[in-house]
């Protein structure tokens, strides 16, 4: 094998109390895509921060283009030709595509004037290369997330980057956008770029990557050719144990209808009728923008309902705020943990009891701490939440543990209907399975669960019944046994319109 473009060797990094990286090695070869995988907290982000010089390493060496290098910050590493495309894009929506690409490096004439013509021309070339069909003068904010990501890649290319690191690039992308991204990655590989692909989505790793490096608890577990691996072995390497069956289905005799929605109209929701039984998981599938999240938020009172009825055990409820929904026994756990789910600066305890705080209050709003602690510790225990104490700031926990806190917060309200919107997004494999087990436990206790997800295997594996949304309507409903990936996909792009009543 040829010399790698970039090599990180024996990297060590400690923070007070934790060894975040312990002898980690990563090789990036020209013309190859290296997957970097590991559970949340395995050290992937820390490794990238060490590479770009945000963190100073305690030991180990960086070799780039055959020589030892040292970067003092992301600006330096980018200049040297190593670009990172972060999960949260670093772009300015109010500027044009070209302005974004050349931000801080505008092409300047002799009088300090910007040479727009050159800039637009060069940006146009880059966009063409990536197959983006937009003028470089277009305002960035008008682009979809997938296209914005392409702009980030264009920016990386404009630096003449040799190494491009992508951190969870497909998290916010639709299937078509993902495909377009993979085409670009293939092209970059063909033109001799070295690519690091960080993802939780194992399927994608087998689709697009050549090699895979696995980290676990800050340790280097191994580097393997993807061709020699299968999904089970990869998971085993990541979690250090064999995970049996990913979706541990449990059979529960469904009870009465708990939630019934009739002809609901709301922003981007166009006449939806649905019902869920006790002890049942209803999967709701559909592409992004199909109105799934809007429907759930309307049921939860977070978006205004224009018309239609929502009833709980046959009793029609007026839901005009999340408070009304909580009182009616409906809990919604948002897909966007950081923006809508948790107060990251507050503690595990304060987050968990936030929405049910009234239950822990004596007269005049006095919070009875002993009761609160008992409830919080109960959930930390039952959910196996990995946190040093209940007073730990929630922002310091891993994604999976944050999600558990978020679910615990909802359950503190003792809901009859639990709506989970993308409950495993940004959650690692081990924690995913734990979350599935929890969902099944709730189901066994007779709770009604609505599971909204973009991940087909998750929907198919967990649900008893699946409804598919397309352009604000339910365009298909299947019992789990009859559903498969193709049927759901066809339905979600609007190919089939078979209305079945539950």
């Amino acid at each position: 094998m040829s010399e790698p473009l970039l090599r990180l060797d024996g990297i060590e990094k400690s923070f007070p109390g934790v060894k975040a990286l312990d002898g980690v090695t990563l090789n990036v070869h020209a013309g190859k895509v290296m997957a970097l995988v590991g559970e949340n907290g395995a050290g992937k982000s820390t490794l990238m921060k060490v590479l770009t010089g945000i963190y100073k390493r305690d030991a180990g060496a960086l070799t780039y283009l055959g020589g030892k290098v040292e970067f003092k910050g992301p600006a330096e590493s980018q200049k040297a030709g190593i670009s990172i495309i972060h999960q949260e894009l670093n772009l300015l929506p109010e500027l044009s595509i070209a302005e974004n690409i050349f931000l801080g490096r505008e092409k300047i004439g002799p009088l300090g004037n910007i040479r727009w013509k050159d800039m637009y021309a060069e940006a146009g070339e880059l966009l063409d290369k990536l197959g983006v069909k937009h003028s470089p003068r277009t305002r960035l904010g008008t682009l979809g997330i997938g296209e914005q990501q392409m702009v980030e890649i264009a920016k990386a290319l404009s630096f003449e980057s040799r190494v491009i690191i992508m951190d969870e690039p497909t998290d916010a992308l639709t299937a078509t956008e993902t495909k377009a991204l993979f085409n670009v990655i293939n092209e970059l590989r063909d033109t001799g770029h070295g690519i690091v692909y960080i993802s939780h989505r194992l399927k994608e790793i087998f689709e697009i990557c050549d090699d895979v490096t696995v980290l676990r608890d800050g340790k280097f577990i191994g580097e393997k050719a993807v061709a020699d691996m299968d999904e089970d072995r990869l998971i085993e390497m990541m979690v250090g144990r064999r995970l049996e069956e990913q979706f541990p289905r449990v059979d529960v005799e469904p009870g009465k209808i708990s939630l019934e929605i009739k002809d609901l109209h709301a922003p981007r929701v166009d006449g939806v009728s649905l019902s869920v039984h006790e002890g049942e998981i209803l999967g709701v599938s559909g592409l992004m923008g199909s109105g799934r999240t809007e429907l759930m938020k309307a049921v939860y009172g977070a978006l205004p309902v224009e018309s239609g009825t929502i009833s709980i055990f046959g009793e029609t409820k007026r839901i005009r705020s999340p408070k009304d929904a909580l009182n009616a026994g409906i809990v919604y756990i948002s897909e966007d943990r950081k923006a809508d789910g948790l107060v990251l600066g507050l503690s595990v305890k304060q987050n968990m009891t936030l929405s049910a705080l009234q239950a822990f209050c004596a007269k005049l709003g006095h919070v009875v701490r002993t009761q609160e602690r008992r409830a919080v510790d109960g959930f930390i225990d039952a959910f196996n939440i990995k946190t040093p104490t209940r007073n730990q700031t929630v922002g310091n926990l891993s994604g999976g543990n944050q999600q558990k806190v978020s679910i615990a917060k909802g359950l503190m309200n003792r809901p009859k209907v639990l709506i989970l919107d993308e409950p495993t997004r940004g959650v690692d494999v081990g924690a995913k399975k734990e979350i599935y087990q929890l969902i099944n436990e709730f189901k066994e206790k007779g709770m009604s669960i609505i599971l909204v997800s973009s991940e087909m295997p998750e929907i198919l594996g967990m649900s008893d019944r699946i409804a598919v949304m397309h352009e604000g309507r339910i365009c298909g409903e299947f019992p789990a046994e009859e559903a498969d990936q193709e049927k759901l996909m066809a339905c979600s792009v609007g190919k089939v319109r078979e209305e079945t009543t539950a």
Partner: protein
Amino acid sequence: MTANNNVSQGSSLKEKLIAQKSLIALAVMIVVVSLLNPNFFTTGNILNILRQTAINAIIAVGMTMVILTAGIDLSVGSVLALCGAVGASLIAQGMPVVVAVGGALLLGAALGAVSGMIIAKGKVQAFIATLVAMTMYRGLTLVYTDGRPISTGFTEVADAFAWLGTGYLLGIPVPVWIMSLVFGLAWYLLNHTRLGRYIYALGGNESATKLSGINVDRVKVTVYGIAGFLSALSGLIVTSRLSSAQPTAGAGYELDAIAAVVLGGTSLLGGKGTIMGTLIGALIIGFLNNALNLLDVSSYYQMIAKATVILLAVLVDTKSK
């Protein structure tokens, strides 16, 4: 108390150190000035400083709560003046002290709540809403007083009212007692009640707080109401001390209050901070004012010195974060 407070905010050792750092700064200042001027560290002078600090400190308590919700209240000085003037004229009309004080405090709470309503329901930025309120209430004060001071008069009621600003209880000035009470209650509210929890949550992430089923509008109105109430309380103390209400009273007080909050380590972005930090911040400003006077620094230079100290404190604070 401070330690417990920090733990309850789920914070780390670092924040504990920051809280103590302002305490250390305060201690150093006291030691240095005591060495430079023997009149500084005397019971009389300390009590004097505490009494002067009380005005700003009480306002700063309300400001802390507002800033914790990621808001700001620029109208505190104007509310102070208007409520002081209304209180003074009620006393001058011979109303019982309880009625005058109660009326002025209620008015303050109402004025604050109006700002809160404009911010919560009207979706106006707090800076703009309270800037408008500041101008509006100052105008109302000038109209109400006709631009002249309102004397509380020389009646028995006026004498009783004067106790609020000039009296002593067990050898300690009444305003200092009031300040202590206000801080105690605010500490309890922020750390042991539902409202306190909601204030931190709202400042930390409004959207998540709303989706948790919390009526954030009500929290905002309450918080600005409290800020107005406490401004009125300070206004009454000022009026009582001078036996008259000045139409220009309280001008610029919002900046001293904000400075105290920031010196106390509260983040202007909301969600982070402690009430005891604010107390220390207010004390630093109070002690500094007094020290500059005792050291015979010209009043022109005093502002420069004050600004420098605040800037240094905040710089040290951001550096360590």
